[in-house]
């Protein structure tokens, strides 16, 4: 069936596959530096797919959104994260709450679930990229899984940011992106969010001497 | 004309009560003495005792309140009023509609409460001891008496004493099982209320056993006379109630003087037989421990309620 698809659809499917692969890689990644690089790669793939869609469908505002993604998700955020890692001099590996193979199995189940979730919608979608909607939902689900299973603050934030990427990818695949003013708003929110999280890292660090989430469990109902 | 006759009959009723009551007590003491083969005291002894007491001066305890002085008069008045209500010489007395059976029980309760309060007013151990035991007896005897009256009123479809007497009188000599239960219950209640042997010994002054005597320990002179007369009246009224409920034949209907004379000897006969039976009961039974009294009165209460049940089960069927 892929033969009949136009070149752009094939490229988009390829990029979507790359997106899914990157999401899986981030879930199973042990070292934080490579985690940030994977996040940067995911941003790049997202920007590429938006560009391809923009070219193929002639949607002018998509160029703007690709540009924002490029600036924000590929250059600015990774740079902020690298500086933070450098200043906090955290080099250590990431501990996970449940071991990696287990997370992988859950990840696969999630992908299957998101595909049959997206099935009814993708039939209705008029866009050429309707088949990638399932992948977009899968990457959102995988990043949520990553946030749940990580026990360190920084990986959790990176999971949060990759969820944003997944959502943007879903937006472009389902509806050729949101109106420009909304895209700008979302980008601004993500940027400010990351800055605030950076401030938090420093506060948590000098309060708990470590960025481990397990220190943040004192506010609870006593049994 | 008949209102004058009614007033005369009512007056004769009161006069008969005041005269016959002390005689009845004297007669019961005489019977008991004979049964215990002692020499019997004269039947007129109570009258002489009242006269003696009225001559003496009344000695009062030092911290006594005016309630103590007033109580004997109220108690005597209640008993006198009760004797005027219970139909003995004629069933349609002038004062009969003033109170029905429930009001009569209320009257006895009023007298009991005043004598208990008088007992407590003295402030010594004996007065409150007697009051506590009297109220213990009272709160079980009163409902039992009410149940007896209820049984009789269910049979005669009314709670006013005159209608009850007439209804029970006309039905001839059929024995009602419910009335039998009520009769036994009534005798037990009568014994308890009048402080007779099984529950309380009227003659004793032993602190541990006395109930009624303990309350009137401090009374003397005219107060004691009134109280003693009231006690005699109470015994007489209970006898008349027993006669009215269980042996009502011979109590005349109308309120005229002729059948009054015919009713008097019959009443004297019934009182004499009743008095002898009371003396018999007193000689053959011994005084119970105070905490056995609630069981004794509990049985009386159950019997009375049983009487009502029996009436509803058996007799309404007809």
């Amino acid at each position, binding site marked *: 069936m892929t033969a009949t698809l136009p070149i752009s659809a094939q490229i988009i499917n390829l990029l979507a596959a790359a997106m899914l692969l990157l999401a899986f890689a981030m879930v199973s990644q042990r070292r934080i530096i490579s985690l940030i690089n994977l996040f940067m790669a995911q941003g790049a793939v997202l920007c590429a797919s938006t560009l391809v869609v923009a070219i193929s469908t002639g949607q002018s505002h998509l160029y703007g959104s690709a540009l924002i993604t490029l600036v924000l998700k590929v250059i600015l955020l990774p740079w902020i994260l690298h500086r933070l890692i450098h200043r906090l001099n955290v080099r250590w590996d990431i501990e996970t709450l449940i071991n990696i193979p287990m997370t992988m199995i859950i990840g696969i189940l999630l992908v299957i*679930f998101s595909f049959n*979730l997206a099935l009814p919608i993708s039939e209705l979608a008029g866009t050429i990229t309707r088949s990638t909607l399932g992948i977009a939902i899968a990457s959102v689900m995988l990043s*949520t899984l990553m946030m*749940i*299973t990580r026990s360190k603050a920084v990986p*959790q934030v990176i999971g949060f940011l990759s969820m944003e990427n997944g959502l943007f990818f879903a937006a472009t695949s389902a509806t050729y992106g949101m109106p420009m003013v909304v895209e700008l708003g979302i980008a601004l929110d993500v940027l400010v969010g990351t800055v605030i999280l950076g401030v938090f890292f420093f506060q948590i660090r000098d309060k708990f001497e470590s960025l481990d*989430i*397990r220190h*943040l*469990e004192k506010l609870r*109902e*006593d*049994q | 004309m008949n209102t004058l006759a009614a007033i005369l009959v009512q007056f004769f009723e009161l006069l008969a009560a005041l005269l016959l009551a002390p005689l009845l007590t004297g007669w019961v003491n005489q019977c008991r003495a004979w049964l215990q083969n002692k020499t019997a005291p004269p039947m007129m002894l109570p009258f002489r005792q009242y006269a003696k007491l*009225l001559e003496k*001066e*009344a*000695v009062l*305890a*030092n*911290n006594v*309140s005016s*309630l103590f002085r007033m109580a004997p008069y109220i108690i*005597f*008045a209640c008993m006198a*009023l009760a004797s005027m209500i219970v139909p003995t010489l004629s069933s349609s007395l002038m*004062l009969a509609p*003033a*109170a*029905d059976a*429930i009001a009569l029980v*209320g*009257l006895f309760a009023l007298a009991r*409460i005043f004598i208990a*309060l008088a007992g*407590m007013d*003295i*402030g*010594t*151990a004996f007065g*409150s001891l007697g*009051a*506590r*035991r009297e*109220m213990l007896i*009272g*709160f*079980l005897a*009163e409902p039992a008496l*009410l*149940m007896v009256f*209820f049984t009789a009123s269910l049979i005669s479809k*009314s*709670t*006013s004493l005159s*209608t009850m007497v007439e209804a029970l009188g006309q039905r001839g000599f059929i024995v009602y099982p419910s009335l039998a239960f009520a009769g036994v219950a009534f005798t037990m209640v009568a014994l308890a209320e009048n402080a007779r042997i099984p529950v309380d010994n009227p003659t004793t002054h032993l*602190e541990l056993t006395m109930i009624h005597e303990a309350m009137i320990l401090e009374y003397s002179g*005219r107060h004691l006379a009134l109280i003693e007369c009231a006690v005699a009246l109470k015994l007489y009224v209970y006898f008349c109630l027993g006669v009215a409920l269980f042996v009502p034949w011979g109590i005349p209907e109308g309120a005229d003087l002729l059948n009054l004379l015919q009713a008097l000897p019959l009443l004297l006969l019934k009182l004499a037989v009743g008095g002898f039976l009371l003396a018999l009961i007193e000689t053959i039974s011994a005084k119970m421990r105070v905490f056995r009294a*609630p069981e004794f009165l509990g049985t009386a*209460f159950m019997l009375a309620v049983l009487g009502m049940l029996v009436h*509803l089960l058996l007799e309404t069927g007809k």
Partner: protein
Amino acid sequence: MSNLLSLDWALVLIVSWLVIGVAGLLLSHRFFLISRVLFPLGAIVGLALACVAFGALGNAAEEAVLPLGLPDLPFHVRLDSLSAVFLLLLGGAAAGISIYCAGYFRKGEGAAPGLQCMLYHVFLASMAMVLLADDAYAFMVAWETMALSSFFLVTTDHLIPEIRRAGYLYLLIAHVGAICILLCFGVLHGGSEANSNLTQVSNYANYTFTHMRAQQHNTLWASAAFFLALFGFGAKAGLLPLHVWLPEAHPAAPSPVSAMMSGVMLKTAIYGMLRVSFDLLYTQLWWWGVIVLSLGLASALFGVVFSAVQNDMKRLLAYSSIENIGLLFVGIGLALTFKSFGMMTLAALALTAVLYHCLNHAAFKSLLFLCTGSVLHATGSRNLGKLGGLIHQMPWVAWLALLGAISSAGLPPLNGFVSEWLLLQAFLFTPGLPHAYINMLVPVAAAAVALTAALAGFVMVKFFGVVFLGRPREESLSQAHDASLLERIGLSWLGAICVVLGLFPVYVIEKIDNVTRLLLGAGLYEANEMYSTAETAARASNWLMLTPIHPDRASYMPVVFLLGILVIVAIVFLLVRNLWHNKERVSGAWDCGFPLQTARMQDTAEGFSQPLRQVFEPFYRLQSDIPTSFDKSPRYRVIVEDHFWYWIYLPIGRTADFGAKLVAFLQQGRISVYLLYSFITLVILLFLIRG
């Protein structure tokens, strides 16, 4: 004058009560003005309300709509003879109690008098509003304002932890009761199937009582509404399983407030019960009556048995209120059963007994509570063990307390006896019921009521004897001062009501007959199947003799009764004084040879009730530690507790706590667990909409 006169007057008087309250708050620093001006003013308003209600008793129901309330459901107000009787009760009692308050609140003790005055008058106004309310919203607002203001009054001296606990328990059970009443109104207003058309914007407007009266329910919904009302109003009245708050809350309040709560507030619950079961509900089923009868009997017996063993005089009176409420519910049960079998005259007899007993209980219970107030003020102690011999220092209070005690024990010349007599008469007619099973129940019920009345006598002797008679058990009692003038006026006003209700029952019953005619369609003094109109007319006119059904059936002439006793006392007194003498000599009491006679040798309160503790042993939860003879410091202690507290209320507390513990598991503190919750809810919802 426009025909809405009495209703307008009632509303004006309620507003004036509120104005007095607010004035009290504003002038809170000037103590004299509040106690000597505002409270008497409140009393006058109360008296005026009683007169308005007395006037309105006969004529037809008046209705009005106030601008307050929800946009589509403004406050409906209605004054018919049922609410008029209870307004009469409220006005009369409020007059006496307010005058007493004027004398009772002294400078500088207890909470701020200004606040007290405001809360007290808001309490009165909300009770009056409950009696006038004619729609669910107005009723509920007035009902809970009454509960709220009485809660603040109960916790006036909130420094004592027990009082705070009592206040909390009181408001909690009152609130649960109110929720049930709201649920009952919901069912009554038409239930789910009757008219659930959503299109009508103001369809919650049909929460007025007039709409509810027109509803025809099937037996299921009618029974549901009835038992919700029974639970709700029973909680406020103190019916058996829901009575635990009453012996805690009433004694905690200052005496005039506990008098108002015991005397009048409990009657608003009875009013509510009558309004729902006879006026709003379309059908009455016989087994409702039997259940209410048995609940009433249980609480009557329970109340009197517990009041006999109390050592605190105000708790003793609170438990005796439970007993009287039990008797009232017995009367309501009888009336329901008779009405369901169509025997209207007998239902009228039972209902007259209920209404008469409401008036009586309001009079003598507030009188007794006010007397305890004066005793508390004079001696500073409520414990019966520390009182005694007060009749010498406080004659006024003692004799009026005796009057209250006699009428509370239900003894002939006074008012307690009349309502008890009517109730027992009603019992004697039950064998006529066509239902064999109920006929069996009659003797047991009659026996229980008789036993309760007798025990009430026991309780009153203990109360009066231990407090007022004998020797003072503490030295400080000798300086006890009698009630002040204003307090005496309040007490004697209530005493006068007791005497009047006792001696002139025919007038009172004639007035109450309007209510029975409203609720049952047939009054007591109407021609019934047994007796022709001529005889009934004669009976009604003869003010001397009370014969509810027929002269030769049962009759009672209170005035002749009292005259008889007084005449004989006078004759004997004069006879003895003239024929013999009235010399008196005072000397020591008989001490049986022990020279050392101390006041401690009298019977204490525990001692007086010891026989009862022995006879009714299974009723109590007893803990008594009796010292052995070798005990160096012998201490005798008896704690009597309530089984229900351990059977019902503590388990409820434990289950609530267990529920909380279970739910606390949800909030563990780990952020990953929280994210998991969010994820799982999402998945479940997606699965739901997929299906």
